[in-house]
């Protein structure tokens, strides 16, 4: 059997079958003006070595900076064991198993992953992972609408603008949209505004913990307010800070999602990453994605299965709970191994060192002229925002020359309504010397 798809003979046969003479006629709906004629300026073919050299030259233009940028993705240390183990050939596929029950090892890892996500978030059930944090948040909104059979979705104004955008895109497809709830002068969600926006058509409130500015929201009263109005509370968490903070589940969240990148997945110009998704048991049948369950075989030995598949798209088609029927297998594996290496204590230490670094930096930055904390009285863990009298982009430029990525410019996100300044994030990888260099860069 030939593995060459679509030979000229195949094409001719298919054209004859559907009654067109050639490819152009098949695509006759596409106007001529949109048809690309030939490939623009393709270089000549290279030998393998020439190609390697060309790519190395391109790669050498990347800069390795000391990273104080966060805003959703964080520069944590990934132990070498993670990379070593995920490269085992039994594991090394990015794909979800499609004949799952013969892949017991893969299913067991996913089961462990789900268990860790549940422990981390304080929730009852977790799925096998989502594409990333933002799509997990969007799926949570879609799920809340299905659970409550209500329409409107509220989101804290301090939700990461990327999360907001992705969620809004999903919702528009469903004929709904996101409504923002303003942030109060203390950096916390404005509860009066929330109370006014809630109503019997609100499916959920999405709130970030800590929020985009690094401020630790008070989850419990928000859960009470939302649930009293019959809405669900969706919490978007920074999973590393959960090493120190009380879990969203403990505080009353109905659905918890997170960007799982900090566990096992290095920053790599934006990906690939892995979304975490967990919920209360009573909502399990409305959960998107794959779920691995444990069972016993005919001889009473423990085994793992993909469970609740009947809700998925390959079976329920247009009535599926979600369009996702895959998972981020390899990235979830990396997260599982990293979390297993850290353990509960290790994760707490990572969060503690990150927080200590952030608080050290805050003390230094507060003493500078022309720099002010956006929310000086708000509790934070490892990320906070400063307003700067100097244009934040100029500071970033200066940092770039000094080998420092001095955070994320707040002016990139006009929808936040925040003053110009920098959002600064800290991990266990930073040390006092690096933070002092950051402070020098910002001081000018």
């Amino acid at each position, binding site marked *: 059997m030939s593995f060459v798809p679509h030979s000229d003979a195949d094409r001719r046969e298919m054209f004859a079958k559907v009654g067109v003479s050639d490819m152009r006629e098949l695509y006759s709906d596409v106007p001529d003006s949109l048809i690309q004629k030939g490939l623009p300026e393709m270089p000549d073919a290279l030998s393998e070595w020439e190609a390697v050299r060309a790519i190395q030259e391109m790669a050498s233009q990347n800069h390795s900076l000391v990273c104080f940028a966060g805003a959703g993705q964080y520069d944590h240390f990934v132990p070498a064991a993670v990379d070593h183990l995920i490269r085992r050939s039994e594991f090394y596929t990015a794909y979800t198993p499609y004949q799952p029950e013969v892949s017991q090892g893969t299913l067991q890892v996913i089961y462990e992953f789900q268990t860790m996500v549940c422990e981390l978030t304080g929730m009852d059930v977790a799925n096998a992972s989502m594409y990333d944090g933002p799509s997990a948040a969007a799926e949570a909104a879609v799920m809340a609408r299905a659970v409550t059979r209500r329409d409107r979705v509220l989101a804290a104004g301090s939700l990461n603008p990327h999360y907001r955008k992705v969620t809004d895109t999903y919702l528009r497809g469903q004929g709904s949209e996101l409504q923002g709830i303003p942030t109060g002068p203390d950096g916390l969600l404005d509860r009066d505004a929330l109370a006014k926006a809630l109503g019997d058509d609100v499916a959920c409130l999405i709130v970030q913990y800590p929020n985009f500015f690094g401020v630790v929201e008070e989850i419990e009263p928000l859960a009470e307010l939302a649930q009293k109005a019959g809405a669900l509370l969706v919490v978007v968490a920074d999973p590393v800070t959960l090493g120190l903070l009380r879990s969203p589940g403990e505080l009353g969240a109905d659905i918890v999602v997170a960007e799982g990148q900090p566990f096992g997945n290095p920053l790599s110009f934006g990906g690939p990453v892995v979304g975490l998704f967990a919920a209360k048991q009573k909502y399990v*049948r409305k959960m998107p994605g794959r779920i691995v369950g444990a069972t016993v075989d005919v001889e009473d030995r423990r085994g793992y299965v993909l469970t609740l598949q*009947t*809700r998925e798209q390959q*079976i*329920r088609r247009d*009535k599926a709970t979600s369009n996702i029927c895959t998972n981020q297998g390899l990235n979830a594996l990396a997260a599982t191994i990293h979390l297993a290496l850290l353990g509960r204590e290790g994760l707490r230490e990572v969060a503690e060192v990150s927080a200590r670094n952030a608080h050290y930096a805050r003390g230094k930055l507060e003493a500078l002229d022309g720099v002010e904390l956006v929310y000086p009285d708000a509790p934070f863990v490892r990320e906070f925002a400063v307003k700067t009298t100097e244009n934040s982009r100029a500071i970033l430029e200066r940092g770039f020359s000094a080998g420092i990525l001095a955070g994320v410019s707040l002016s990139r996100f006009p929808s936040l309504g925040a003053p110009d300044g920098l959002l600064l994030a800290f991990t266990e990888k930073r040390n006092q010397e690096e933070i002092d260099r950051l402070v020098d860069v910002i001081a000018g």
Partner: protein
Amino acid sequence: MSDIPEGLKYTEEHEYVRETEAADEFVVGITDYAQGELGDVVFVELPSPGDSFARMDVFGTIEAVKAVSDLYSPLSGEVVAINEALNDDPALVNSDPYGEGWMVRIRARDMSELDVLLSDTDYSGHIEA
């Protein structure tokens, strides 16, 4: 051969409608044929009392090991009771579809809708077709 009791009304989607002591209230479930086709029922998602549905609206879902199907309301009206026992024991739908495996009790809004439902002989013909 599946059991199709006389005196009940049926839909082409395999729900049955049974009269009750109240003239405008009816019990709805799925037929013996339907439970046999689905296999072991593992979950039944039912509406809440007070919910209203138009005729042939989806009022819930039924989940078997290999499939999930929608449940269609044979009549327009309001749900006055649901079979809570199915939460703990959804297999009642398999063992006793016309009795303990009932699903919802509906107060009908338009009694003329009864006339468009199938009789037992119509339904028997429908599943043989």
